[in-house]
């Protein structure tokens, strides 16, 4: 118990750790909130796709500027991510290709092109570009203070936009045709929502890596869906789950040497997911089993009564 307190104290007192914990928490909060909309619009794997499109963006940003800096990389990744979402929309709206295949196409071709660019840069070899791909593998613990502050700021902004446009986003994900009919600029809103997902993903990549960033968006949202029927509550819960996962990730990885923050956060989110699947008040396994048993019971008297009638 004293060990636990000591470690929590350490987390609270070490300024660097504190920043990382705060950053991971805000990251979890904002991606959890935005993830709800992606989930409801059946675009759960959009996060995964956008994360992979970041690679060519980063490479091009480096080729153009020649500097290795986080803001430049983030900008390149955001531009590439938006290009990716537009490409998906073009493919699905102008051909018979379905959304899942369009995402697969964009994911792999962007990443493939990114690898080509990356290897070309590496083979041109003047040494200064080593570590270009480090951005992709996510090392929250090695982030410096300014990186964390940038990420935290971006996340706060995302959460704020999400809260302000709650009503519009809700309508758009529930009934886009109605939203259009009611005079909302659905095209712009849709673009904004996609842009939020892109920014959330790019902010998350450096903390948890390309592969795992998708989890920050989906896992809390799916978990929250097991507890409520209301979108507002779902977003709050999802944000909470995300924040808790981020905090747990930062804390546990600070306690065990060599444990990376990102994967631990993802595993914390997965644990919350499992608990929700089992005990969620809506569709949770326990609840479902109980109601099914109750319904079978309520059927039994009727069945035995009808049998009695037949016998009589």
């Amino acid at each position, binding site marked *: 118990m004293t060990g636990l307190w000591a470690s929590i104290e350490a987390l609270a007192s070490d300024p660097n750790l504190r920043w990382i914990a705060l950053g991971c928490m805000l990251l979890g909060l904002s991606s959890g909130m935005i993830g709800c909309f992606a*989930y*409801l619009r059946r675009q759960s794997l959009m996060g995964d796709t956008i994360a992979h499109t970041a690679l060519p963006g980063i490479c091009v940003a480096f080729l153009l500027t020649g500097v290795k800096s986080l803001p430049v990389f983030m900008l390149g990744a955001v531009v590439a991510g938006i290009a990716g979402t537009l490409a998906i929309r073009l493919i699905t709206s102008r051909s*018979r290709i379905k959304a899942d295949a369009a995402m697969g196409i964009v994911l792999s071709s962007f990443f493939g092109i990114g690898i080509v660019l990356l290897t070309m840069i590496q083979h041109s070899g003047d040494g200064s570009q080593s570590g270009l791909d480090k951005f992709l593998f996510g090392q929250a613990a090695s982030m410096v203070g300014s990186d964390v502050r940038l990420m935290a700021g971006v996340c706060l902004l995302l959460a704020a936009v999400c809260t302000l446009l709650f009503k519009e986003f*809700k309508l758009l*994900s*529930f*009934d886009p045709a109605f939203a259009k009919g009611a005079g909302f600029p659905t095209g712009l809103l849709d673009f904004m929502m996609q842009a939020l997902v892109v920014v959330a993903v790019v902010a998350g990549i450096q903390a948890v890596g390309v592969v795992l960033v998708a989890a920050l968006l989906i896992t809390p949202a799916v978990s929250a*869906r097991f507890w*409520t*029927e*209301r*979108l507002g509550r*779902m977003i709050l819960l999802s944000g909470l789950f995300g924040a808790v996962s981020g905090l747990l990730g930062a804390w546990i990885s600070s306690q065990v040497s060599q444990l990376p923050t990102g994967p631990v956060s993802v595993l914390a989110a997965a644990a919350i997911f499992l608990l929700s699947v089992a005990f969620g008040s809506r*569709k949770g396994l326990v609840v*479902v089993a109980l*109601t*099914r048993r*109750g*319904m*079978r019971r309520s*059927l039994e008297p*009727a*069945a035995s009564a*009808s049998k009695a009638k037949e016998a009589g």
Partner: protein
Amino acid sequence: MNAYEEAAADRDIQDAGKPKRIVLEVAGLSTAYRNRSVLREVTFAVPEGELVAIVGPNGAGKSTLIKSILGLTPTLGGEAKAFGETIDAARKRIGYVPQRESVDWDFPTHALDVVMMGRYGRLGWFRRPGRKERAVALECLRGVGMEAFAERQISELSGGQQQRVFLARALAQDADLYFMDEPFAGVDAATEKAIVELLRKLRADGKTVIVVHHDLATVPEYFDSVLLLNVTVQAFGPTAKAFTEENLHRTYGGRIGFAGAGAAAAASGRQDDPAPRQDAVHTFQGGGRL
């Protein structure tokens, strides 16, 4: 009197006095979706050679009834038997026409090929469809007036034509008992007429057809018997006896007919996930069930 009616009259004379063989027996079938009963204690038996309509408001469990009889969705209890055997044992004698929306019409295949799929059950595990299956499929397409569209990509067919392809596929199954889920939904007048003729021809051949139907106005004209369903069986029997105003009122909870169907169509859609939509569905079913 046209040929079909004559045949039907003939059959009635022959069958008079002789009890008809029961081909489908459903006993105490119950299913649930989450904590809501979709079907409760559904029991009925269908004699050979009848056209049976299943009618009821949206959300009454009509499609679910067919699917649970066929073992396509899990049930809470009860059983179904066809030709005195379990459904699994009788599958080769059962034909099924799913709702048209249940498949992806962009699938890379043509009409004839879809019809040939009806033969897959009879081909067994390893045999491939050959010339014989092709001939049967063409014959079935002809039966629904679609032979000219045999090589047409299925997405290029109109809704009515797609429905006819599905019916031809059911014919290709060469079954004795058919289940059809909303075959009349969204089809043109010509197709509706073709379907009705097909149903009568099936009946003349001694087949039994159970149809989920939504157009109350045509029930007496098209069907011999009707099953009024709203979670439980509200009424079942020959159309003349069971299809009464009183029974309809009980089934539809006072909101009879086309207005109810329209509201239902508006409220349906994706049933599961987005939270607000869920509420809309619940409200509707609360009103519809009574």
